[in-house]
Protein backbone atom coordinates (compact mmCIF):
# COMPACT_ATOMS: atom_id res chain seq x y z
CA UNK A 1 0.00 0.00 0.00
CA UNK A 2 2.45 2.56 1.25
CA UNK A 3 5.04 1.50 -1.26
CA UNK A 4 2.76 2.01 -4.20
CA UNK A 5 1.98 5.48 -2.94
CA UNK A 6 5.59 6.52 -2.91
CA UNK A 7 6.28 7.01 -6.58
CA UNK A 8 9.02 9.51 -6.97
CA UNK A 9 11.91 10.54 -4.83
CA UNK A 10 10.14 13.77 -4.19
CA UNK A 11 7.24 11.89 -2.69
CA UNK A 12 9.57 9.82 -0.63
CA UNK A 13 11.24 12.95 0.63
CA UNK A 14 7.94 14.49 1.58
CA UNK A 15 6.89 11.28 3.28
CA UNK A 16 10.01 11.25 5.42
CA UNK A 17 9.74 14.94 6.13
CA UNK A 18 6.19 14.51 7.32
CA UNK A 19 7.44 11.78 9.64
CA UNK A 20 9.86 14.15 11.33
CA UNK A 21 7.26 16.89 11.47
CA UNK A 22 4.69 14.59 13.00
CA UNK A 23 7.23 13.42 15.54
CA UNK A 24 8.22 16.94 16.42
CA UNK A 25 4.67 18.16 16.84
CA UNK A 26 3.62 15.14 18.87
CA UNK A 27 6.67 15.44 21.08
CA UNK A 28 6.02 19.14 21.58
CA UNK A 29 2.43 18.50 22.59
CA UNK A 30 3.44 15.69 24.89
CA UNK A 31 5.94 18.02 26.52
CA UNK A 32 3.63 20.98 26.87
CA UNK A 33 0.82 19.02 28.53
CA UNK A 34 2.78 17.88 31.58
CA UNK A 35 4.57 21.21 31.92
CA UNK A 36 1.24 22.99 31.84
CA UNK A 37 -0.26 20.58 34.34
CA UNK A 38 2.54 21.11 36.77
CA UNK A 39 2.54 24.86 36.27
CA UNK A 40 -1.18 25.14 36.86
CA UNK A 41 -1.33 22.61 39.66
CA UNK A 42 -4.81 21.48 38.62
CA UNK A 43 -4.55 17.92 39.84
CA UNK A 44 -3.36 16.48 43.09
CA UNK A 45 0.32 15.60 43.27
CA UNK A 46 -0.28 11.89 42.89
CA UNK A 47 -2.55 12.32 39.89
CA UNK A 48 -0.07 14.70 38.26
CA UNK A 49 2.75 12.24 38.77
CA UNK A 50 0.74 9.51 37.09
CA UNK A 51 -0.05 11.72 34.13
CA UNK A 52 3.59 12.77 33.82
CA UNK A 53 4.71 9.15 33.88
CA UNK A 54 2.24 7.91 31.31
CA UNK A 55 2.83 10.84 28.97
CA UNK A 56 6.59 10.40 29.27
CA UNK A 57 6.24 6.76 28.21
CA UNK A 58 4.11 7.80 25.23
CA UNK A 59 6.64 10.46 24.29
CA UNK A 60 9.45 7.91 24.45
CA UNK A 61 7.47 5.72 22.09
CA UNK A 62 7.04 8.71 19.77
CA UNK A 63 10.77 9.36 19.76
CA UNK A 64 11.53 5.75 19.03
CA UNK A 65 9.05 5.65 16.19
CA UNK A 66 9.70 8.97 14.48
CA UNK A 67 13.30 9.86 15.30
CA UNK A 68 15.04 6.54 15.85
CA UNK A 69 12.82 5.03 13.13
CA UNK A 70 12.28 1.78 14.94
CA UNK A 71 8.88 0.37 14.12
CA UNK A 72 7.21 -2.97 13.46
CA UNK A 73 8.45 -3.32 9.89
CA UNK A 74 10.55 -6.37 9.07
CA UNK A 75 13.63 -4.31 8.15
CA UNK A 76 13.79 -2.90 11.64
CA UNK A 77 13.24 -6.21 13.41
CA UNK A 78 16.77 -6.37 14.69
CA UNK A 79 16.64 -2.99 16.39
CA UNK A 80 13.14 -3.65 17.65
CA UNK A 81 14.17 -6.88 19.34
CA UNK A 82 17.25 -5.25 20.75
CA UNK A 83 15.21 -2.41 22.21
CA UNK A 84 12.60 -4.74 23.63
CA UNK A 85 15.28 -6.91 25.19
CA UNK A 86 17.11 -3.94 26.66
CA UNK A 87 13.84 -2.43 27.79
CA UNK A 88 12.93 -5.64 29.57
CA UNK A 89 16.29 -5.76 31.29
CA UNK A 90 16.30 -2.15 32.49
CA UNK A 91 12.74 -2.53 33.69
CA UNK A 92 13.69 -5.64 35.61
CA UNK A 93 16.71 -3.97 37.14
CA UNK A 94 14.99 -0.71 38.03
CA UNK A 95 11.86 -2.35 39.36
CA UNK A 96 13.79 -4.79 41.52
CA UNK A 97 16.04 -2.03 42.78
CA UNK A 98 13.18 0.27 43.73
CA UNK A 99 11.28 -2.54 45.39
CA UNK A 100 14.28 -3.57 47.43
CA UNK A 101 15.48 -0.15 48.48
CA UNK A 102 12.08 1.25 49.37
CA UNK A 103 11.32 -1.90 51.30
CA UNK A 104 14.50 -1.41 53.27
CA UNK A 105 13.64 2.23 53.70
CA UNK A 106 10.26 1.52 55.25
CA UNK A 107 11.76 -1.05 57.54
CA UNK A 108 14.24 1.49 58.82
CA UNK A 109 11.66 4.12 59.58
Amino acid at each position, binding site marked *: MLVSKIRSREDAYRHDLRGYQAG*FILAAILTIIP*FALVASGTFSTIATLWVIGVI*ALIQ*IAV*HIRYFLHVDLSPERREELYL*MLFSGALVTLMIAGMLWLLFNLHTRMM
Partner: protein
Amino acid sequence: MNVIARSLGLTWVAEYDHEHDRAASALSGFWLFMMSDLIIFGLMFATYVTMLTPMSFAGGPTPKELFELPGAALETAALLTSTYTFGMASLAIKFDRGLGKVKSWLLITLALGLVFLALEIREFAHMVAEGAVPQRSGFLSAFFGLVPLHGVHVTAGVTWLVMMLIQINRTGLTGSAKSRIARLALFWHFLDLIWVGIFSVVYLGGIA
Protein backbone atom coordinates in the same frame (compact mmCIF):
# COMPACT_ATOMS: atom_id res chain seq x y z
CA MET B 1 21.62 -29.09 -5.62
CA ASN B 2 20.64 -28.33 -2.08
CA VAL B 3 20.37 -31.99 -1.18
CA ILE B 4 23.79 -32.74 -2.58
CA ALA B 5 25.29 -29.77 -0.84
CA ARG B 6 23.89 -30.81 2.50
CA SER B 7 25.59 -34.15 2.39
CA LEU B 8 28.86 -32.38 1.56
CA GLY B 9 28.48 -30.35 4.71
CA LEU B 10 30.86 -27.70 3.56
CA THR B 11 31.99 -26.27 0.25
CA TRP B 12 34.62 -23.67 -0.59
CA VAL B 13 33.50 -20.95 -2.91
CA ALA B 14 35.67 -18.06 -3.95
CA GLU B 15 33.91 -14.76 -4.12
CA TYR B 16 34.81 -11.19 -3.79
CA ASP B 17 36.00 -10.97 -0.29
CA HIS B 18 32.58 -11.02 1.26
CA GLU B 19 31.76 -7.37 0.57
CA HIS B 20 30.63 -6.84 4.10
CA ASP B 21 28.46 -3.95 4.83
CA ARG B 22 30.88 -2.18 7.17
CA ALA B 23 28.47 0.67 7.78
CA ALA B 24 25.71 -1.73 8.84
CA SER B 25 28.02 -3.49 11.28
CA ALA B 26 29.13 -0.19 12.71
CA LEU B 27 25.53 0.88 13.13
CA SER B 28 24.64 -2.36 14.94
CA GLY B 29 27.63 -1.96 17.19
CA PHE B 30 26.56 1.56 17.97
CA TRP B 31 23.07 0.41 18.83
CA LEU B 32 24.52 -2.04 21.31
CA PHE B 33 26.67 0.66 22.82
CA MET B 34 23.61 2.86 23.28
CA MET B 35 21.68 0.09 24.95
CA SER B 36 24.59 -0.46 27.30
CA ASP B 37 24.52 3.23 28.02
CA LEU B 38 20.79 2.99 28.56
CA ILE B 39 21.42 0.64 31.46
CA ILE B 40 23.78 3.20 32.99
CA PHE B 41 21.16 5.89 32.74
CA GLY B 42 18.45 3.57 34.01
CA LEU B 43 20.45 2.83 37.14
CA MET B 44 21.23 6.50 37.67
CA PHE B 45 17.52 7.27 37.40
CA ALA B 46 16.65 4.55 39.87
CA THR B 47 19.33 5.74 42.27
CA TYR B 48 17.97 9.25 41.99
CA VAL B 49 14.46 8.09 42.78
CA THR B 50 15.62 6.15 45.84
CA MET B 51 17.29 9.32 47.05
CA LEU B 52 14.02 11.27 47.05
CA THR B 53 13.47 10.63 50.74
CA PRO B 54 13.75 12.97 53.71
CA MET B 55 16.62 10.81 54.91
CA SER B 56 18.58 11.54 51.74
CA PHE B 57 17.66 15.22 51.70
CA ALA B 58 19.58 15.23 54.98
CA GLY B 59 18.10 18.55 55.99
CA GLY B 60 19.33 20.16 52.79
CA PRO B 61 17.34 21.62 49.91
CA THR B 62 14.52 19.55 48.41
CA PRO B 63 13.56 19.31 44.74
CA LYS B 64 10.64 21.67 45.27
CA GLU B 65 12.94 24.34 46.61
CA LEU B 66 15.57 23.85 43.92
CA PHE B 67 13.97 23.40 40.54
CA GLU B 68 12.08 25.91 38.44
CA LEU B 69 9.87 25.21 35.47
CA PRO B 70 11.05 27.94 33.09
CA GLY B 71 14.66 26.82 33.07
CA ALA B 72 13.72 23.19 32.46
CA ALA B 73 11.27 24.26 29.76
CA LEU B 74 13.90 26.24 27.91
CA GLU B 75 16.41 23.40 28.03
CA THR B 76 13.77 20.99 26.81
CA ALA B 77 12.83 23.28 23.95
CA ALA B 78 16.43 23.64 22.84
CA LEU B 79 17.10 19.92 22.87
CA LEU B 80 13.84 18.87 21.26
CA THR B 81 14.28 21.39 18.46
CA SER B 82 17.84 20.26 17.93
CA THR B 83 16.63 16.70 17.50
CA TYR B 84 14.29 17.91 14.78
CA THR B 85 16.98 19.93 13.03
CA PHE B 86 19.29 16.93 13.10
CA GLY B 87 16.49 15.00 11.47
CA MET B 88 16.46 17.61 8.72
CA ALA B 89 20.19 17.14 8.23
CA SER B 90 19.71 13.39 7.94
CA LEU B 91 16.98 13.94 5.37
CA ALA B 92 19.19 16.29 3.39
CA ILE B 93 21.85 13.58 3.28
CA LYS B 94 19.45 10.81 2.41
CA PHE B 95 17.91 12.73 -0.48
CA ASP B 96 21.08 14.44 -1.71
CA ARG B 97 19.93 17.95 -1.07
CA GLY B 98 23.46 19.25 -1.28
CA LEU B 99 26.34 19.73 1.07
CA GLY B 100 25.32 23.30 1.90
CA LYS B 101 21.97 22.23 3.29
CA VAL B 102 23.50 19.47 5.34
CA LYS B 103 26.05 21.83 6.79
CA SER B 104 23.56 24.50 7.70
CA TRP B 105 21.21 22.06 9.44
CA LEU B 106 24.11 20.58 11.34
CA LEU B 107 25.28 24.04 12.34
CA ILE B 108 21.83 24.90 13.65
CA THR B 109 21.85 21.66 15.59
CA LEU B 110 25.24 22.49 17.00
CA ALA B 111 24.09 25.92 18.05
CA LEU B 112 21.05 24.48 19.80
CA GLY B 113 23.24 21.92 21.55
CA LEU B 114 25.47 24.70 22.79
CA VAL B 115 22.46 26.69 23.96
CA PHE B 116 21.30 23.66 25.90
CA LEU B 117 24.69 23.25 27.53
CA ALA B 118 24.89 26.94 28.38
CA LEU B 119 21.47 26.82 30.02
CA GLU B 120 22.41 23.75 31.95
CA ILE B 121 25.69 25.18 33.18
CA ARG B 122 23.92 28.33 34.24
CA GLU B 123 21.48 26.24 36.22
CA PHE B 124 24.25 24.29 37.94
CA ALA B 125 26.13 27.47 38.75
CA HIS B 126 22.99 28.87 40.25
CA MET B 127 22.51 25.80 42.41
CA VAL B 128 26.09 25.84 43.58
CA ALA B 129 25.77 29.49 44.49
CA GLU B 130 22.79 28.61 46.66
CA GLY B 131 24.85 25.99 48.46
CA ALA B 132 23.09 23.12 46.70
CA VAL B 133 26.33 21.26 46.01
CA PRO B 134 26.64 17.49 45.58
CA GLN B 135 28.53 17.28 48.86
CA ARG B 136 25.48 18.59 50.67
CA SER B 137 23.29 15.46 50.64
CA GLY B 138 22.70 12.07 49.11
CA PHE B 139 19.86 13.53 47.07
CA LEU B 140 22.09 16.22 45.59
CA SER B 141 24.79 13.65 44.87
CA ALA B 142 22.27 11.65 42.89
CA PHE B 143 21.13 14.76 41.05
CA PHE B 144 24.67 15.69 40.16
CA GLY B 145 25.33 12.12 39.17
CA LEU B 146 22.41 11.95 36.77
CA VAL B 147 21.86 15.32 35.08
CA PRO B 148 25.50 16.28 34.42
CA LEU B 149 26.08 12.76 33.12
CA HIS B 150 23.56 13.58 30.44
CA GLY B 151 25.31 16.91 29.99
CA VAL B 152 28.64 15.16 29.48
CA HIS B 153 27.00 13.02 26.82
CA VAL B 154 25.70 16.12 25.08
CA THR B 155 29.18 17.60 25.26
CA ALA B 156 30.56 14.50 23.62
CA GLY B 157 27.85 14.77 20.97
CA VAL B 158 28.74 18.40 20.35
CA THR B 159 32.42 17.54 20.00
CA TRP B 160 31.60 14.77 17.60
CA LEU B 161 29.38 17.13 15.63
CA VAL B 162 32.23 19.62 15.32
CA MET B 163 34.48 16.87 14.08
CA MET B 164 31.94 15.80 11.51
CA LEU B 165 31.57 19.36 10.30
CA ILE B 166 35.32 19.53 9.85
CA GLN B 167 35.34 16.23 8.06
CA ILE B 168 32.59 17.06 5.58
CA ASN B 169 34.12 20.45 5.04
CA ARG B 170 37.36 18.79 4.00
CA THR B 171 36.22 15.71 2.13
CA GLY B 172 32.57 16.26 1.36
CA LEU B 173 29.89 13.67 2.02
CA THR B 174 31.93 10.50 1.63
CA GLY B 175 30.63 7.11 2.58
CA SER B 176 32.50 7.22 5.85
CA ALA B 177 31.13 10.65 6.69
CA LYS B 178 27.60 9.53 5.96
CA SER B 179 27.92 6.44 8.07
CA ARG B 180 29.33 8.45 10.97
CA ILE B 181 26.66 11.09 10.75
CA ALA B 182 24.06 8.33 10.78
CA ARG B 183 25.49 7.08 14.08
CA LEU B 184 25.77 10.57 15.49
CA ALA B 185 22.12 11.13 14.59
CA LEU B 186 21.16 8.04 16.57
CA PHE B 187 23.19 9.28 19.49
CA TRP B 188 21.63 12.70 19.36
CA HIS B 189 18.08 11.37 19.25
CA PHE B 190 18.93 8.97 22.04
CA LEU B 191 20.11 11.84 24.24
CA ASP B 192 16.86 13.62 23.66
CA LEU B 193 15.02 10.48 24.66
CA ILE B 194 16.98 10.36 27.91
CA TRP B 195 16.15 14.00 28.44
CA VAL B 196 12.45 13.16 28.29
CA GLY B 197 13.12 10.97 31.30
CA ILE B 198 15.08 13.69 33.05
CA PHE B 199 12.55 16.47 32.67
CA SER B 200 9.73 14.12 33.63
CA VAL B 201 11.35 12.49 36.64
CA VAL B 202 13.66 15.19 37.94
CA TYR B 203 12.03 18.48 37.11
CA LEU B 204 8.31 17.83 36.68
CA GLY B 205 8.28 15.02 39.23
CA GLY B 206 10.21 17.19 41.65
CA ILE B 207 8.04 20.24 41.32
CA ALA B 208 4.66 18.50 41.12
